[in-house]
């Protein structure tokens, strides 16, 4: 069941396109904003609202990187693993995070607090290495700074 807010947010976009089916990503992002990820059940509800099959919707969902079809932690860390960040210390940053959180890339901490994911170039290469946590961009990251950054996310 989509909540009234979710439904409203999605329907607000209907007028922007000649066809509801153009809203596959937008609709899934709305649900993901509220729930963190898109479950099979949510997928069905969205498909119904957009009048597409659930298979078609999942075909789109599984193509894109930012749609999570598995549960994620309360906070999603996305560490840029592209070239400039790699030059500037991505591996050190990654290893530190993995050690600090006790998880491998793609995993969620047992307490459900963080999910650790790689992400492609974040477009802030002059401030590498960089990462995003939820909607926040963190850049020019020193490994010393990581812990205080993580502190902000309960």
């Amino acid at each position, binding site marked *: 069941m989509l909540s009234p807010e979710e439904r409203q947010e999605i329907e607000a976009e209907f007028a922007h396109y000649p066809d509801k089916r153009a809203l596959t990503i937008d609709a899934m992002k709305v649900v993901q904003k509220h729930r963190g990820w898109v479950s*099979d059940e949510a997928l069905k509800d969205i498909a119904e609202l957009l009048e597409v*099959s*659930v*298979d078609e919707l999942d075909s789109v969902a*599984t193509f894109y990187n930012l749609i999570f079809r598995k549960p994620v932690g309360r906070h999603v860390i996305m560490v840029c693993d592209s070239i400039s960040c790699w030059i500037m210390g991505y591996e050190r940053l990654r290893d530190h995070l993995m050690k600090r959180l006790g998880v491998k890339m793609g995993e969620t901490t047992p307490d459900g607090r963080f999910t650790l994911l790689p992400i492609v170039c974040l477009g802030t290469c002059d401030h590498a290495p960089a990462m995003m946590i939820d909607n926040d961009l963190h850049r020019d990251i020193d490994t010393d700074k990581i812990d205080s950054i993580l502190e902000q996310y309960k």
Partner: protein
Amino acid sequence: MAKIWVDDKWYEVNPDQSLLQACLGLGFDLPYFCWHPALGSVGACRQCAVKQFKDENDTQGRLVMACMTPVAEGTRISIKDPDAVAFRAGVIEGLMMNHPHDCPVCDEGGQCHLQDMTVMTGHNYRRYRFKKRTFRNQYLGPLLNHEMNRCIQCYRCVRYYQDYVGGDDLQAFVLRNTVFFGRQEDGVLKSEFAGNLDEICPTGVFTDKTVKAHYTRKWDLQMAPSVCVHCGVGCSTSAGERYGTLRRIVNRYNGEVNGYFLCDRGRFGYEFVNSEQRVRQAFSRQDGRLKPLPKEKAVEQLRDILKGNDRVIGIGSPRASLESNFALRSLVGPDRFFNGMSDETSRLVSLMAEILLQGPARSPSLREIEQSDAVLVLGEDVNNVAPRIALALRQSVRQQPMEMTDKMKIPRWLDFAVREAIQDQRGPLFIATPAATRLDDIATATYRAAPDDIARLGFAVAHALDYEAPVVPDLSSEVSALAEQIAQALKNAKRPLVVAGPSLNSEAVVHAAANVARALSKDGKAARLSFTMPEVNSLGLALLGGGNLSAAFKAVEEGEADTVFVLENDLYRRAPASAVDKLMQAVRHLIVLDHLMTPTASKAEYVFPSGTFAESDGTFVNNEGRAQRFFQVYVPKEDIQESWRWLIEIMKAAGHPVAASWNVLDDLVSATAAAAPVLAGITEAAPSAKFRIVGRKIPREPLRYTGRTAMHAHINVSEPKPPDDPDSPLAFSMEGYPGQPPSSLIPFFWSPGWNSIQSVNKFQSEINGPLRGGDPGVRLIEPPQVSNWLYFSAPQKAFEVRPDEWLLVPLYHVFGSEELSAQAPAIAQLAPGPYVALSVTDAARLQVNDGAQVEVKLNGNVQRLPVMVQQGLPTGVAGLPMGVVPLEGAGLPLWVRLSRS
């Protein structure tokens, strides 16, 4: 025509195609994967690369994909260019990196396009040393097997399933080199055309699951050109046997009928041939029970029954061949031959035959249906009664939009570009049926109504087209407006089509369709009128003639007849059980010839084992009016033989003079052809048994057929002589003419280097065009030069809802409604359980929900059935699934009482 230069010569080719099609049509072995003649080009796989040169001075050239390059005057390409050859091998290398190389255990092996293209490109050395990506397979239903590791990401499956068929539950998931083709979750694929994925998929990802249960390599099959027996469309098929069991049905290309595709009922319905219920010997009733007896005895006893007996009648069947029906007619005499269709069906099929014969509208082939640019469907749920026509109708709505993309200079074969430019635009398609259909999603408008109202709409359309056509009184403004809209659309079209049929048992609907077609023809339009037929030979039988069923019953009841032959027919499906039971009581000798021990056969005095389509030769006439010959695939075990052969034997034993000269199929075909002028053309449906090519017969078995000695070694170590086939130019052997026979005699498609179904390319005079020498079958009905027709009069009264009764109308199911395919376990699994359909309003009126039980009083019997609430069903109308609910031959539509249980 355009001149193109390929390697070292100029060639003249059709300019409306891609270079790939042109090269394939010229006979070049240019490899490809993602292109398909019915799906067009998308340029994904990159397999068909050739080198293109600007002019004769350009020595460098550049690689282009032949499937994406238009044919233009002066195009210069090289297929043999070393860069192109190397690149094509490189593409195979890419595809094979992740491939499991499991040919020995893969069902596709021996008929695999990937195998063929791998050999063709010469790639043979593996450089990739890393891990392969693997997938978990899905359960997709009882018809198709899923083995994703073999996938080469050609995208044919989803393009076919989504774009051609309109399905949405088969999709591509994920991306890069891990694309997964399947459903969001395991489950039966929803489309009734999913089975074609077996042939669409160039590897073994999608394969026929029913074949898996008794798997045989293509090269080990004995095959013959056959015709699907599960509906009136009569698609051409290729049937294959091994060790005496029918193994599979695959599509046999027929450019005018089925093209490259079958429906699932036709592909998977064949297992009835292997059913436990098969009658394999002659039976007679001894001590009240049916017991086997030697065939000679059975024939003898029949001779005795027939001696001096002038009270013999014969009941034929619309699912039996023309020849079998004719033989029975000859045995009993034309005035004692009854066609074995229910009264209503018989009346309607004869009416439809008459309308087509009278003209002026043309009965279109399936290809012509595809090319129609405005369609009106009156009453028929085409997806369920003539599925292959539904698939053709789905393509027809692209005709008008493609005129727009033609103007944009987008070639029709550039598939995605055409579809993107067209978006959701569709040509006119109007569907008037009581219940929702699976073509509704592409319909311009649908009209849900009772049969009489559907007829009235049709009559109103005819009147809107031509004021001389009868007026329909008391038409609502909505329906008038719809009729006007439909008339406009048909009038503005270049190739308008009306589709109707006998499914609703409504003469008025058939009349209305005729009126519309006639009104269109008056305008000088190339109007087409397609009538669906309920069974494979309904139209053929109607053209042959024969009385109706109640006359047959009457004859027995009144003592005029006491000996009844029933040919391949279960009378309990044709008439109320009470009437059939009465016949059973009254008749003295009941002789049944059939494949299966049906309820009728189980009550007979004699049962003769009838060969199915796979074990017989004969002719069917499809709904188009096309006579098609089907050929025996194998010699059946035990005493099974063609019905017509049984009848000839019986006639000979009884001293029938006319049968004296009948020994082989050709004798009977000629005699049948002489029975009625309209049937004269059936002799041309295939060459006679005397036909040879350079003195050789056509082999049913591929050159690489194995084990022909070993398979009999446990019986006799010496290899037996292959059985003779006096009925056809085909041989039960791999020996014979190795080249291409006439199209009606092609048992399977194969060409050197092309082991898969893609070898069809080599048999066509033009890719996606006719087979060389013309497509199989002979049209028997052409509109006459001069046609003196009259309009039929319109029904005066509209449908009226009754307070305590419902009009029960027939609903049809592609899986379950047809008698023979319903015996195939996979089909039976997909058939619905019994139900009665009610509209939302009526369900509310009766205070029932989905699944609640109601009582239906039918012919004095009460049946308890669960409700299925169906959106759109008109108020006052209820629906009953044919073949699924024991109907007692109720003769729908019928007013019934319904009450909550």
